[in-house]
């Protein structure tokens, strides 16, 4: 399985994402000017500050040649994972529902926290367990407050698109309904604010991040 990690000017977590992907298969960087994803089986849009995050986080990156290719790839059912800034980019691109706003307390948050992973249908964990899983994963962002209008929230909850929630009492940014990550209706596009790519080695305290990458790989399978 070949993973492609998109690199924009201003990305900063693409190396860790590449490393995480390489634990599950082959991985290569996809420069933002590339518009050919031939051979790539799954795409990661990594964290950072693409194009300086000018205007709104993710607003400019959305129009890069690589993102046009990612949109086509996603439309064809290809698995796409957006992490932090990548999540913001996917929301701006309309590939995921909702938007990410400035943290409620206006502070940049950087901490280890726990996520509750919803039982997915297509984005299932390899064991296929239906119980809710707790993942220890770090989060670091200034604009991670998940927002969607009430009706949209009700709709994504009803259709099982809420992929990750902050564990009770651990919502770091004021996200509505503690939402940390969502997926699209088809289930092949997933985005979350916390950083699974920073939690793939016991050296850094947790390997739970791999579960997120495995869930994305399972879409392909």
């Amino acid at each position, binding site marked *: 399985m070949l993973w492609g990690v998109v690199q924009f000017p201003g990305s900063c977590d693409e190396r860790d994402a590449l490393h995480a992907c390489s634990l599950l298969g082959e991985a290569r960087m996809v420069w933002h000017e590339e518009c050919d994803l031939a051979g790539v089986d799954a795409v990661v849009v990594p964290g950072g500050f693409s194009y300086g995050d000018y205007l709104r986080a993710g607003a400019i990156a959305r129009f890069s040649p690589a993102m046009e290719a990612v949109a086509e790839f996603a439309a064809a059912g290809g698995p796409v994972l957006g992490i932090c800034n990548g999540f913001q980019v996917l929301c701006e691109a309309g590939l995921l529902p909702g938007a990410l706003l400035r943290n409620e*307390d206006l502070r940049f948050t950087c901490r280890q926290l726990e996520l509750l992973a919803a039982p997915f249908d297509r984005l299932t964990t390899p064991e296929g367990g239906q119980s809710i899983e707790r993942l220890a994963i770090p989060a670091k962002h200034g604009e991670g407050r998940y927002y969607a209008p009430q009706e949209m929230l009700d709709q994504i909850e009803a259709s099982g698109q809420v992929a990750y929630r902050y564990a009770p009492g651990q919502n770091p940014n004021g996200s509505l309904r503690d939402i940390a990550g969502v997926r699209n209706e088809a289930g092949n596009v997933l985005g979350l604010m916390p950083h699974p790519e920073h939690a793939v080695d016991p050296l850094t305290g947790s390997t739970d991040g791999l579960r997120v990458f495995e869930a994305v790989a399972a879409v392909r399978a």
Partner: protein
Amino acid sequence: MARARVLIRPKEGILDPQGKAVERALPALGFDGVEHVRVGRMVELEAEDPERLSELCEKLLANPLIEDYEIESLDGP
């Protein structure tokens, strides 16, 4: 070229922590009695085709899910 100013602000009902922070700072400076502060963004531009400004706002300058915008012409009447 048509000169225009676009005002972008958080939609009504969306929590605006920047506005709240400004509002909370005002009394300390002696400015009492100020409320409902909302912080937005202003973009000035010159466009060959002002007819396309709304489309441009919808696609890039504002995120219609979370922001409202107003286009104001800067050319005299």
